[in-house]
């Protein structure tokens, strides 16, 4: 299961979903889905998001093994 720190990083920067969405070229709803772990992003999108937060992809996204 994909877990992300997008919401945490976004709020730390005082950024709303729409702004982040515009920065990485996706819809606001997609950011919402990503934050809830309900969408697996493409590698490019994952890298673009990590770049916005000045982090590595692994620091923003982690895969947790399902029990």
């Amino acid at each position, binding site marked *: 299961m994909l877990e992300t720190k997008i919401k945490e990083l976004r709020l730390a920067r005082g950024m709303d979903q729409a702004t982040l969405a515009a920065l990485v070229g*996706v*819809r*606001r*709803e*997609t950011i919402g*889905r990503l934050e809830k772990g309900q969408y*697996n992003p493409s590698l490019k*999108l994952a890298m673009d998001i990590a770049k916005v937060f000045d982090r590595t992809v692994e620091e923003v996204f982690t895969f947790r093994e399902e029990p």
Partner: protein
Amino acid sequence: MKRPVLTLTRSKQLSALCWAVVLFFGALANWFPVKDLPNPLRTAVVGLLLVAAVVIILTTLGVWVEKGDERSAENERRTNSTLFTLVFLAMGALLVWMKNGQTLILGRSELLVAFGCVCLAQDILFLLYERFGA
């Protein structure tokens, strides 16, 4: 940067609603032809259908609608794939149901209803994938 007026989801919801309106009156016309309605009612129905047609055209062309992204492209692909499967199954069912020598004749109004059903199904499937898809 000016934001678009409609989100993609909202435009699909509007499109689905308008197709439902067209289908409703298209089906109703079988029992209550528009030309036999009293003038005020006929004007209202025609007006509503014109508005629905304009909304369908605008949403299909993506006027004032936000640009799609990778997720909507994937959902669009899944929608079209599922829709093709459904149409394929419907045609198969029709082939099984029809007897030898039987012909299928579709008038203009029936064709509009059939086309409207496909378009409505496409919008609904897309919305379902957006809501429940991974």
